[in-house]
């Protein structure tokens, strides 16, 4: 096992005020603990009280962008998912 085998990890960070983890970037590390420590050093120099997730890149499964239109096609023409599809009187409050 040589140095060339440091795997690639994707880094997700939720800031102190945040609601969800956001993808921050990637880095190489020998194991999960090093990945988290490196993620702290590289991606959180200006943040406190954050939550860091690291995942080896090979375990991230992604949709294929080339199939974008056919993959998401059904969603585009179902306009009834959007609030503006429903016509309601203006006097109606809190909806």
């Amino acid at each position, binding site marked *: *096992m*040589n140095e060339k085998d440091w795997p690639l990890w994707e880094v997700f960070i939720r800031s102190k005020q945040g609601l969800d983890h956001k993808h921050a970037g*990637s880095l190489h590390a020998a*194991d999960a603990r090093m990945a988290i420590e490196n993620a702290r050093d590289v991606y959180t120099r200006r943040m406190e009280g954050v939550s860091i997730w690291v995942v080896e890149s090979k375990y991230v499964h992604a949709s294929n*962008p*080339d199939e974008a239109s056919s993959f998401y096609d059904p969603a585009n023409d179902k306009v009834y998912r959007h609030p503006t599809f429903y016509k309601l009187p203006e006097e109606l409050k809190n909806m």
Partner: protein
Amino acid sequence: MTELEFQKIFDDKISREIRIEPRDWMPEAYRKTLIRQISQHAHSEIVGMLPEGNWITRAPTLRRKATLIAKVQDEAGHGLYLYSAAETLGITRDEMISQLHSGKAKYSSIFNYPTLTWADIGAIGWLVDGAAIMNQVPLCRASYGPYARAMVRICKEESFHQRQGFEILLTLSRGSEIQKRICQDAINRWWWPSVMMFGPSDDHSPNSQQTMHWKIKRFSNDELRQKFIDVCAEQVKILGMVLPDPLLRWNEERKHYDFGPINWEEFKQVIAGNGPCNRERMTARVQAHEDGAWVREAAMAYADKKKKKQEKNVA
């Protein structure tokens, strides 16, 4: 889908300002030019740690030391964001580092100059980071997603760098005779190399036209350089110092500062490896990489050992 159809989708995304992402089809030339630009940008950040790292042990106060360490730490981080962005295009970290060490890949010419006094640290923050910011803000809208996102992160962190530098020069400019002298001297030595950071005039810049067509680059070298000069010509007045250009003069018709001729021969020489510190920079980088080999190997061996132990426990 045929290559022609992929090309059409790509061109359409570019014209509609939709980001190109790592798994999208892209012309081979687009991929190559991005690998070159992003990796060289990354190398510049890492090599850029050296001239400033030089003064960490000799910073005049604890506050100056702490802020300089933070700045150099940021530069390391910036290099890492950019290496990661470049890797999404299919090049490995090892290849990029080899290219830097062999001289195949370039880095910004500015980092081949020496930091001779503490005032140089101020000049670098004000002028070099200033020029970098001017270049980097438009890159936040570069067509390649990972590059643009890395640039947004970098720009957020860069502004303290410039303020730190200017504050150093301001302090010196209000100090003793010697402090005022080293302040002006540093400005004299860093001005023209900073102006050269924007690269040759676009008709002499081989890559500009293509990178502008692909919306990697948004403004020409000359446009950015003019903006930089206009801004610095005003800022230098606050320091009570002068820029070392006898031909620097406000032009009321152009609404810009006219400036003197740039010594492109010096730029060519520095890029070719004949600047004052090229060899020193490369020696330092190669040595750091070689000295760190045992750490990389040990980390991997340890991770391996732990993994095997875990597997044994589960079995």
